[in-house]
């Protein structure tokens, strides 16, 4: 698809959205059924590559209350629209399926398929909630959202705004770590997950200051069940903040990953596959984002402009005897806008300028359009 056709598509989306919002603002009511969910439909047009149209996420959320204190939530997702056995295409994922035992405000128990409580996006990933067509890179390769696995734990809120989650979960699989995508494919996704040793995931959030949310997350778990001789303990530390006042919203996130015994892990995987995966001993990423509600008069006149800077390196520290691949020391500027014809519908457009430290391999810039909705 050529760039001008993408512009036409964008204009069509905005036009339709505006026309529809003019009608829905007159009819202020909306309805919802027993099923909720969200969807994301994207046009990605990277430089010097073919543009793609992708129905990225189709997610249905089901919930049921057995009683006021025992509740079920399930989230079933189809990624990339099409799933066929034995081929690399889409995925069907059970992202959440847990039972909550709500005991007190300060102490509750949750068990089943859980979202890992890590970072801003992993537990708040509905398309109207974040800016940009795609999720931040840091929340993709450093924190592998949507990150979920089987487990159990506790959660609650203490006093005026100190919230916590602490879960015991299935560990990551070290054989799936990679040089370019970090931990992205390493979750066992609750599918006959090996739990020879469990991982610990915890997050604390403070929402007691006006307009400000502060968060910190931690993960620790042995990931070597497929390679018992390797002490591949993964530790992730993360800190984030969100400040929202009037029309302005600021977000910041920092995440640091360490992988124990990465040298032996690389050598062991090389023996198995014949290729060294060049896995780092540390990965790091951070981003800062400012967004401003340009129009703020409610539906039909509701638009946010944003700018985000990201820096992420999946080869931040290498084990002895391994050299970092410079193309994976990356940064990105993302600039764009989100138009809300309705608070639950987001028409997004952005331009991504990517850079890396390699003098040979260039990171492509891209122009993206997205349509996302929550219902």
């Amino acid at each position: 698809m050529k760039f001008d056709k993408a512009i036409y598509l964008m204009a069509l989306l905005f036009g339709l959205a505006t026309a529809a919002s003019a009608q829905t603002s007159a009819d202020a009511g909306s309805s919802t059924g027993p099923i909720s969910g969200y969807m994301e439909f994207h046009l990605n047009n990277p430089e010097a590559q073919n543009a793609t149209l992708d129905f990225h996420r189709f997610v249905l959320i089901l919930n049921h209350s057995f009683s006021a204190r025992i509740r079920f939530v399930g989230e079933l997702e189809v990624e990339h629209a099409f799933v066929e056995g034995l081929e690399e295409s889409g995925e069907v994922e059970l992202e959440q399926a847990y039972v909550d035992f709500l005991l007190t405000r300060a102490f509750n128990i949750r068990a089943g398929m859980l979202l890992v409580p890590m970072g801003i996006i992993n537990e708040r990933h509905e398309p109207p909630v974040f800016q940009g067509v795609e999720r931040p890179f840091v929340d993709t390769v450093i924190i592998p959202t949507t990150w979920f696995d089987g487990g159990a734990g506790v959660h609650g809120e203490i006093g005026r705004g100190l919230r916590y989650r602490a879960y015991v979960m299935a560990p990551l699989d070290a054989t799936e770590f990679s040089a370019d995508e970090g931990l992205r494919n390493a979750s066992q996704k609750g599918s006959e997950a090996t739990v020879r040793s469990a991982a610990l995931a915890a997050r604390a959030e403070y929402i007691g200051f006006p307009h400000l949310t502060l968060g910190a997350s931690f993960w620790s778990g042995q990931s070597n069940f497929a390679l018992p001789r390797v002490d591949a303990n993964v530790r992730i530390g993360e800190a984030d903040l969100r400040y929202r006042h009037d029309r302005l919203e600021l977000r910041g996130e920092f995440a640091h990953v360490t992988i124990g015994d990465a040298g032996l892990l690389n050598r062991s995987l090389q023996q198995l596959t014949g290729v060294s995966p060049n896995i780092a001993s540390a990965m790091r990423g951070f981003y800062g984002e400012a967004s401003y509600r340009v129009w703020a008069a409610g539906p039909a006149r509701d638009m946010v402009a944003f700018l985000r800077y990201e820096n992420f390196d999946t080869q931040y520290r290498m084990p002895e005897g391994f050299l970092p691949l410079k193309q994976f020391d990356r940064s990105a500027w993302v600039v764009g806008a989100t138009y809300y014809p309705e608070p639950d519908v987001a028409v997004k457009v952005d331009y991504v300028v990517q850079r890396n430290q390699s003098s040979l391999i260039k990171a492509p810039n891209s122009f993206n359009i997205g349509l996302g909705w929550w219902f």
Partner: protein
Amino acid sequence: MVVLVRHSQLLLAGSLCLVCLIAQPARSQARRVVHVAAERFAFTPSEIVVEPGEEIELRLKSDDTAHGFRIAGTNVNIVIPKRGRQEVVTTLRVDTPGRYEFECTRMCGAGHNFMRGVLIVRDSAKKR
């Protein structure tokens, strides 16, 4: 004599009206307004403290999608409209000291079950 009685009746009626006029604004001034913001997946504030028998006016507004707001043990169970629509107002008076949990009753996303808070009605006797 009749004139005197009439005068005293008028005076009494006038005084009553005056008392009513003074009492009316005094009562509305006494009602505290509590603004509650709802946003995925938190209410701010998430803890509201009142005295027993104190009447408060809750003004609830969403910053994103529609949320539910139910306070267990009371008759408050309302829908907070989406961002850009008007705030919803309800009054509440609880006489019995205790902790009354409130929660979002309308599925609003992955962290919906985290969206809870507490209304604390102080125990005046304990305070003394």
